[in-house]
């Protein structure tokens, strides 16, 4: 029986949570319900409002609109120290004048946990993040990854009903980031902590989260499981964020049910429609969905840049009319090569050129929440 267990909650409900800074909306009516034990990632480019949302939840920023409910109790008026949420900061925010042990025990001390139990729980938390040999060191003596482990242990030792993580891996180097990602996943699985995780790295979000909330300019674009968001992005913004690196804007020439044909600029692309279209639309294609061969949606291109990625190459090509496209292929190509590439129509997603979500934020509503 471990000493640390997650405090079980049944749901955290964000009801039209908004925050503006000097008249500018940083977060516009965020509506999401998080179930106990769920791992939710807030994902978006910098400035999209994801950190604002997290700080609002932690109580570090007051809301300018909406409310937050934890198991039916309204909590948005509470001070951060009254909420009891664990938070992991981007820069770790470890107390430099305290040892690892004292850092982790700080919250227990503030909550006047009996000494005996506090010691047991700190010991347990140190074990959970595998820092046994470093318990008496000071933060400055630890590596970045170790500091991050301390920050995580410090946040979870209080058995918080909710753990908030603000880009916890962004200050680590690539190898360590992968390790810590697995570590965070492991801790989440072990303890079943309800977690909200902010990141701008879609790979991190896809690999960690049970559910993703995509934000842009403070507005929700899509809420869904990693698979939903990855395979069925609702608009061109989500698509390009989810790895549809090629987006070509062209006039619509033909539409039969879901199948749409765009043509112009020397290109003709047929794909499947994802939302209501205007006169022009955007075709989005993943680099890995192109094949170097003749077939449907064939395009004549010239190779410009080749990046070696081991088994594959990432290649930038240009069409005769000057559109740059990206593809991944196992074929060995060289700059200057002329070739024909193609993509199956079911892998070409067609979105409205002017995304509805960018204006009103109601796209989230026609995505089923689980």
């Amino acid at each position, binding site marked *: 029986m471990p000493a640390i267990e997650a405090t079980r909650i049944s749901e955290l409900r964000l009801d039209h949570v908004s925050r503006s800074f000097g008249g500018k909306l940083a977060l516009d009516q965020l509506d999401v319900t998080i179930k106990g034990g769920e791992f939710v990632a807030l994902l978006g480019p910098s400035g999209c409002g994801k950190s604002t949302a997290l700080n609002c939840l932690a109580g*570090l920023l007051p809301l300018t609109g909406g409310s937050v409910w934890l198991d039916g109790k309204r909590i948005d008026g509470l001070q951060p120290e009254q909420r009891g949420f664990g938070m992991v900061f981007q820069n770790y925010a470890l107390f430099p004048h305290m040892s690892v042990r004292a850092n982790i025990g700080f919250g227990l001390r503030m909550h006047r946990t009996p000494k005996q139990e506090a010691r047991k729980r700190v010991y347990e938390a140190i074990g959970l993040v595998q820092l046994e040999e470093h318990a008496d060191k000071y933060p400055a003596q630890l590596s970045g990854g170790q500091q991050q482990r301390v920050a995580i242990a410090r946040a979870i030792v209080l058995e918080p009903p909710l753990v908030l993580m603000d880009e916890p891996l962004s200050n680590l180097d690539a190898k360590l980031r992968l390790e810590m990602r697995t570590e965070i996943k492991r801790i989440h699985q072990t303890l079943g902590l309800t977690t909200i995780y902010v990141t701008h790295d879609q790979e991190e979000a896809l690999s960690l989260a049970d559910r993703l909330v995509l934000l842009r300019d403070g507005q929700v674009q899509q809420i869904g499981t990693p698979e939903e968001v990855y395979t069925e992005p609702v608009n061109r913004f989500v698509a390009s964020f989810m790895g549809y690196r090629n987006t070509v804007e062209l006039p619509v020439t033909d539409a039969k049910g879901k199948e749409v044909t765009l043509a112009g600029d020397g290109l003709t692309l047929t794909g499947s429609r994802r939302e209501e279209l205007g006169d022009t639309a955007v075709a989005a294609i993943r680099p890995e969905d192109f094949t170097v061969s003749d077939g449907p949606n064939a395009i004549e291109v010239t190779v410009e840049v080749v990046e070696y990625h081991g088994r594959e190459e990432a290649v930038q090509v240009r069409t005769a009319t000057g559109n740059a496209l990206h593809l991944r292929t196992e074929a060995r190509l060289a700059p200057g090569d002329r070739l024909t590439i193609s993509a199956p129509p079911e892998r070409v997603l067609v979105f409205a050129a002017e995304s509805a979500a960018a204006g009103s934020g109601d796209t989230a509503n026609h995505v089923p929440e689980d």
Partner: protein
Amino acid sequence: MATATTAQPAASKTALRHRLAERGIDRNLLLLLPAVLFVVALFVYPFLYGLQLSFQPQPGMDAAKQYGTGPLANYRLFFADSYLRDTIWTTLKLGLPAALFNVLASVPIAYRMRGRFRGKRTITTILVVPITLGTVLTAEGLLTFMGPTGWLNKVLLNLHLVDDPVRLVHNYWGVFFSLIISGFPFAFLLTLAYLSGIDPSLEQAAATLGAGWWHRFRHITLPLLAPGLCITFCLTFVLAFSVFPSAIMVGEPSRQTRVISIAAFHAQFEQYDYAMGSAIAMIMGAVMLVVIGAVFALRARFYRGATGGKG
């Protein structure tokens, strides 16, 4: 062969330059020269000169008359004569509380002002302006404002809060106020700088861990600020301990505020006893050193590493 012999000295010459550079000796060191000259000419030499002078009592002066011309006569006179000896205590009684007050008062104000908000620059300017006022101007202001017929007493009298004017100048309090007016801005600026060097996310982290404002201040901010406060205290104390003009203008220089610098001035420029004047100056320096040493001993017990902020 010939090329080898000519290449040899050149190689060893560069090697020497590299070896010196590794120890931090290079031509950039010359940049230190003006500062070294300055310190030697204006501090080291006068100090050593004064030190040796203090051990050579001038014949015909009080010290020589009472204790002979032995090297310690000036010091013996100083510590035997209560009128001289007590100046140490008088000055400490002014300097220590004033420095302590300046530091303690600057902490909450700086703590409140560490973030960014509208009007911060205005408030900072208002708090710091007194630093630009000379001691004489401050003293005149104090006399006009707090003197027996000053505005403060007029108000107090007219409101019938007091029956007789409150004496706030020409005594201990006048000098104390003057030390605060000139010392506080200094302490405030330093404290604010130290505070903004502390990463604000540390306090946020403490808040999410359940610490209210007092515990956040007590367990996070104060321990990280303490070393800076020690330095601030030392600097304001040194300023206060060498108080001279205000002790004369708004104090009671013959009795309550007869500070040690007045005693030194008296010996040096009224009795023309340079040796005695030097001895008093040396004693003054020693007292300051003792206080600063004690503060630094205390500081050694605090955490002194990085505080994560922009400082």
